[in-house]
């Protein structure tokens, strides 16, 4: 996974609420067996609307997406995170996210920043003309107009994002602990986890 420390750049002033992952990437794009190339399908339906932010040259290539409440609800498809990543998005800022989406985003090196609606409204305004600065180390979102919004993040997620760490590798380092757990359950409830032959 790539490391993520600071992200500075333009932001899509999207703002839509309850964006489900079917909107982020429609199901016919899920037929791929690769993680790449899904940016073309991102927000496909919305991009048919004239004047949508994703096809506005003013925001082309923005690394930040500003969205409304409950972003990424619905399907667990990680393709939504892959599609955003492929589009070049590294940070999504919203008042709230679905649990599954934020987990998927994080595992693909995309930072989800939760800020109150008032901050979102202000950032939407700034994004129309100016850049936004996200600092993961400091846990802040700032603008050149002295706006400064602090955000919370799970320390483990922060550590993994800053270091670009491979979570599976980290967990496999604890293989002995897993084996001990399996053994104890195999004794108490063999129907649940059979002993390994």
């Amino acid at each position: 996974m790539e490391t993520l420390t600071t992200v500075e750049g333009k932001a899509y002033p999207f703002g839509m609420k309850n964006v489900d992952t079917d909107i982020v990437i429609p199901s016919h794009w899920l037929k791929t067996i690769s993680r790449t190339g899904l940016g073309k399908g991102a927000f496909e339906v919305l991009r048919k609307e004239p004047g949508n932010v994703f096809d506005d040259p003013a925001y082309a290539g923005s690394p930040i997406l500003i969205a409304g409440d409950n972003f990424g609800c619905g399907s667990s498809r990680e393709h939504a995170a892959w599609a955003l990543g492929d589009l070049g998005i590294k940070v999504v800022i919203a008042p709230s996210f679905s649990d599954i989406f934020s987990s998927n985003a994080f595992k693909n090196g995309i930072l989800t920043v939760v800020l109150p609606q008032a901050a979102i409204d202000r950032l939407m305004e700034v994004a129309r003309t100016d850049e936004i600065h996200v600092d993961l180390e400091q846990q802040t979102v700032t603008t050149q107009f002295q706006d400064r919004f602090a955000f919370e993040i799970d320390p483990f997620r922060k550590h993994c994002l800053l270091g670009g760490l491979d979570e599976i590798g980290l967990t496999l380092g604890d293989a002995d602990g897993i084996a001990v757990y399996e053994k104890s359950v195999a004794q108490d409830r063999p129907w649940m986890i059979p002993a390994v032959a």
Partner: protein
Amino acid sequence: MVKPRTLYEKIWDAHVVERRPDGTCLIYIDRHLVHEVTSPQAFEGLRLAGRKVRRPDLTLAVPDHNLPTTPRRDADGKRIPIADPQSAQQLEALERNAPEFGVRLIGDADVEQGIVHVVGPEQGFTLPGTTLVCGDSHTSSHGALGALAFGIGTSEVEHVLATQTLLLKQSKTMAVVVEGELGFGVTPKDVALAICGRIGTAGGTGYVMEYRGSVFRDMSIEGRLTVANMSIEAGARSGLFAPDETTFAYLNGRPMAPKGADWDAAVAWWRTLVTDEGAVFDKIVVIDAADIVPTVTWGTSPEDVVAVTGVVPDPDSFEDASKRAAAQKSLDYMGLTAGQRLADVAVEHIFIGSCTNSRIEDLRAAAALLDGRRIASGIKHAMVVPGSGLVKRQAEAEGLDRIFVAAGFEWREPGCSACLGMNPDKVPAGERCASTSNRNFMGRQGPGARTHLVSPAMAAAAALTGRLTDVRELLKDREGMTL
């Protein structure tokens, strides 16, 4: 004295492999269901890193999302090629990956094949008190049997394959209590939709729900599966029912359920899996069963629910400005106007199926209404997609297939089908479907498709009249019939 715990906390505590100082826990995963859409990249990741599947014996692979629901084998037993090369490629990837990594595969033409969330309970793969995951958000379904079950993304699928664990933070708990008796013509689907309407699609975010109260205690496993299935539509990754005699009776004798002395020991442990007296939920939502009526959705989110006897709401009636805008956008997409009576809305398509409503009881409820009747002339296409080959076989043994076909429905092979239109089963743009599935999102059933979520009985009623219909009107003619 031991602190009273909720059912969720008991299952969680029993699965902690390691607790980190920041509260993150390494949680053991007892059961892992794998399907063809969200697993290819996970297996590829294992391959690239030279890793193997830690517990293939706790993993079960079943293709469901992509499969055509038309016959899959010719007269000689040879596969009928899948027209879409990408769908074929995903199926082939699963058929290659499962044996390569030692995982059991239920094949596309096996009688046990079906939607993963129908197959798991049916095979006894899903068991009370276990942790169960799948790369699909409707994994919440398995909570009906008292399993802590939730959907995961592909990176997590790879993590579980490699380590049989996940790194998780404990969720908050929400009790959803429905007491009383359900009214005439009101089904578990209506209960699920009512909950979505009350809580909203984000209301359950960060929570694990527990369904409590007399309505859920009296509900069959099929009904509980419908309700638990839609937990995710109210934002909760997982929704639990405490295992009880109904659960044990359902599981006893299932192929992968414990047998003999193991069964007795398992049941003894399962009986302890109830929320203790005095345990505290972070949130409690109470709904009076008498307030739940036959329900339909009017918009493009499962929280957009209204009584079938009601009217399309006026976007201006919402307090929040962004909600007003969203409602207007939904109405534009749905081709509806504020104040329009739902019962006047004509539909052209009927879909009975999906992990929400494709089990035998669902098919019985629909068939009971359709028996001896014909679908309305305005219906362009009506189909039934059983949840599994075993559901299909059971329905055929009961003669339900003949009722559906005589009424003008197509009787299909099992799979996810028109719930999300990854296979050829799609609703054309601008056309309207009464669907027993779980999501009415824009484009969900096909680009431009308009979805109204309903119960199986209401889907059958809509098929008969050609418009959204209060099933109670039709039930009146069927003397003594209940759902």
